[in-house]
């Protein structure tokens, strides 16, 4: 009896294996490769949407300059290398700091004066800043893009059973996941994070407890934008360093934040990764729709769950 059971199980498993090898005529090996490259793109989306979600979730500012800051990150990395001889690894630390500093100045002198106005004002302001930055960089560096090499330590790749994985792409996944989840952990699980969340919930009360809320706001804005700078440095070796790289990606990232739920930190990370995979699969199954699929997803989510997948109902 036992052996009959075992052989039935074997037959079922074997035929399942056959089915699994090709689903609807799609090669599973190819599919795994596509899933992995989707995840890599998702890492960028996660980093960028995390920055946006922090800034919106904690400060209620819709930062349209996030894409421009991502572009700036890539350009700063290029400038650091070509004008100052600073290599990739240092750029990975210094550029986000520089961008964060820039963001702090931007918050202090441009965003704060209109902080009490309608959200639309900060949206328009940051959108304007993005256009100015993109225009200036197009004027100075042209629109063709600049070359930036993959650092020597990360050249080459590993041959996996289903694809060739360049080492640099593996680095993108690992480093962005580490940054994303440590950020999430700090905000959601530590005392500092609790202050931050409380400070945005009720600034007067927190100030009564002796917490410098305006300083915290400024630093949070700086950090959220620095994440975009970090993503920019990560992107420089693999994508063309060009003035329009930020505007290309920004709208997608906004859609991701909306899908995840405006202001949900963990939601932004997970949705970023998920949408990377969804887009990757679309590129494989029906490439023509790959730039649209995320927006389609957004429409459906907004219809079914207007607060977003991970957002709390307002």
């Amino acid at each position, binding site marked *: 009896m036992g052996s009959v059971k075992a052989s039935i199980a074997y037959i079922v498993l074997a035929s399942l294996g056959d089915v699994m090898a090709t689903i609807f005529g799609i090669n599973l090996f190819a599919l795994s490769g596509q899933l992995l*490259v989707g995840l890599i793109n998702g890492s960028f989306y996660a980093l960028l949407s995390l920055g946006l979600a922090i800034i919106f979730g904690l400060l209620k500012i819709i930062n349209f300059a996030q894409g421009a800051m991502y572009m700036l990150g890539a350009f700063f990395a290029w400038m650091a290398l070509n004008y100052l001889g600073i290599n990739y690894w240092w750029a990975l630390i210094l550029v986000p700091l520089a961008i964060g500093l820039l963001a702090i100045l931007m918050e202090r002198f441009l965003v704060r004066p209109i902080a009490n106005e309608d959200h639309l004002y900060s949206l328009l302001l940051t959108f304007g800043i993005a256009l100015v930055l993109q225009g200036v960089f197009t004027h100075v560096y042209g629109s063709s893009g600049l070359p930036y090499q993959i650092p020597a330590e990360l050249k080459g790749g590993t041959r996996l059973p289903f694809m060739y994985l360049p080492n640099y792409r593996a680095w993108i996944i690992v480093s962005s996941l580490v940054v994303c989840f440590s950020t999430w952990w700090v905000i959601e699980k530590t005392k500092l994070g609790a202050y931050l969340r409380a400070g945005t919930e009720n600034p007067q009360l927190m100030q009564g407890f002796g917490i410098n809320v305006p300083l915290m706001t400024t630093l949070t804005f700086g950090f959220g934008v620095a994440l975009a700078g970090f993503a920019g440095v990560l992107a420089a070796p693999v994508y063309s360093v060009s003035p329009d790289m930020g505007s290309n990606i920004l709208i997608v990232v906004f859609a991701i934040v909306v899908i995840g739920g405006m202001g949900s930190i963990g939601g932004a990370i997970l949705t970023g990764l998920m949408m990377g995979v969804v887009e990757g699969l679309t590129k494989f199954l029906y490439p023509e729709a790959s730039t649209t699929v995320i927006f389609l997803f957004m429409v459906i989510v907004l219809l079914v769950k207007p607060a977003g997948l991970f957002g709390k109902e307002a």
Partner: protein
Amino acid sequence: MKVIKKSLLAAAMSVVATSGVQAAGISDDVVKIGVLADMGGVYADICGQGCVTAVEMAIEDFGGTVLGKPIEMVSADDQNKPDVGSAKVRQWIESDNVDVVTGLVASSVTGAATKVLTDAKKIALISTSASNAFTTKACSPYNVHWTYNVAALANGTVKPMVDAGKKKWFFITADYAFGHALEGIATKVIESSGGEVVGAVRAPLGTTDFSSYVLQAQASGADVVGLANAGGDFVNSLKTAAEFGLTETVDVAGLLVFTNNALALDPAIAAGMKATSGFYWDFDDQTREWSARFKARHGVIPSMGQAGQYSMTMHYLNAVKAAGTDESDAVMKQMKMTKPDDFFARNATLRNDGRMVHDMLLVSIKDAASRQSSDDIYNVEAVIPGDVAFNPMLPECDFK
């Protein structure tokens, strides 16, 4: 009385008629050239401000006047939008006395602009557009297409590779009119030379990440992966192909490469890649002399579109001078009668369909070690005679 009236009328008519034939000189006492191009978008570097500079140089070298009248230039940004471009052209013709429109980059804008120009019987001097439609299915007696077109790119780059045994092709194509045209014409060349196309993906314009498409190309078993795209799409797709090891196992052919794109690529990635170009600055003394003057003003070596822009503007001004008028029909006739011959146009003729047929260059991108300077990017592998590079004229486009 009646007789006098009749003869007066006849005299008046004959005056009108003769003035029509002689096309009295220069209209509005000025020859005005309108330069329409993408000034700040994805195609700004391949023509843009550089085309404006090229036209300025041509006007200066011509002496600033023709038939005793001043030559002026106006320019505008078409933002790669056909509606913006055609509105500008209409304004230029109707209220700004513009005689000829040039620049003309994105094929979609050129398509819209040439329609307006043809309706108004004004000449379009096309410098940088790729589509071959302007001298085939959308041909017009007022179109002049100078630098290159998709047919020349396919004949120049694709055919020699198929002949050398690279039979199986896979395309990564920009998903809009230009990409489709390039893929279509390259496919024809491949099939007529005994090769086959084993697959293609259509990547939306401005795709950031090509890794998914590169994996598909890798799985296709092709000998050659053709990149039927341009600008940033080309740079990004080639970078990704190299990163995923595609360039180690198969040939990657860039079907439309401008020097600006080659400058934006790491030589380690791009070295050895072949491309067809209408011009290269370091070809001989003549090209070097002009290119040095251009670079001194513009800061960057000229793209093929910008060099073509100068050559074409000069040919136009010479034709105005020889015809004694800026009236479009007379100038077109004169332009087609005279063979273009300068640093850009070699063994050239301007055919009746408006296609300027000239020697094209098959180039390959140099590796880092053999570059003498940062601008030293190409090896010229072969000169492709014009009648090999360009497709024959269609009978319905033979505007005498």
